[in-house]
């Protein structure tokens, strides 16, 4: 068994778009455009701005993701906190101009669990995650 302690995992997505950086940046930061590919929102590209992403409510979930803008570096980097279900994660986009387009690298990080991690390692992340959960107890309505 690996002794490495892995406390969180990420989802990484990378895609080349045949469109200029300026245009991709707009799609990531103008709320009307964001609504078309991601979710309805009240986003503004200002660090510290709190906003919500709203999707269709489902049983046991109101469909709301609470966010806070962490990084805005025009045309290059956008990052926001992404909290839902008491799971506090971070989404980060970086844009790199390439010949004929823009490379978008997205990393959604801070997931507390890893099925493959050794148990101790998993517990580290788990406890960190649980700490954040205190805040949402009321909303979830503990049984």
């Amino acid at each position: 068994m690996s002794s490495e302690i892995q406390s969180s995992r990420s989802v990484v997505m990378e895609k080349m778009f045949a469109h200029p950086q300026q245009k991709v940046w707009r799609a990531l930061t103008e709320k009307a455009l964001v609504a078309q590919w991601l979710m309805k929102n009240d986003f503004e590209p200002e660090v510290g701005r709190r906003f919500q992403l709203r999707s269709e409510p489902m049983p046991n979930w109101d469909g709301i993701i609470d966010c806070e803008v962490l990084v805005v570096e025009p045309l290059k980097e956008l990052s926001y906190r992404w909290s839902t279900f008491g799971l506090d994660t971070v989404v980060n986009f970086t844009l790199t101009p390439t010949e004929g387009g823009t490379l978008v690298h997205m990393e959604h990080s801070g997931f507390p669990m890893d099925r493959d991690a050794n148990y101790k390692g998993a517990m580290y992340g788990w406890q960190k995650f649980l700490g954040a959960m205190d805040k949402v107890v009321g909303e979830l309505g503990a049984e």
Partner: protein
Amino acid sequence: MKSASPQHVFRALADPTRRAIFEELTRQGEQTVHALTSFAGVSQPAVSKHLTVLKKARLVRHRRAGRETHYRAQPEALAPMADWLRAYSTFWRERFDRLEALLDGMEP
């Protein structure tokens, strides 16, 4: 063993006492209700109630031995959490496709 839904697991662990009990079981291994009661510092009926919720979320298992009931943690019950990664991978792949469609349709 079938896993509980992430919501069940979240909810079960949303309560600080239940969380403490679960963490104690992961640290110490199998414990009696008796031992857990003195650890948690609440009444035994309260501990039993918490254990029932944890059991429903499949976070703990129990066995009876004589007059004592022993509980142990089920680390694999945390596996539904790992499904978040898979769910979000699918989510983002799909959204990136939509982003591409949007960009293709936008004025330059």
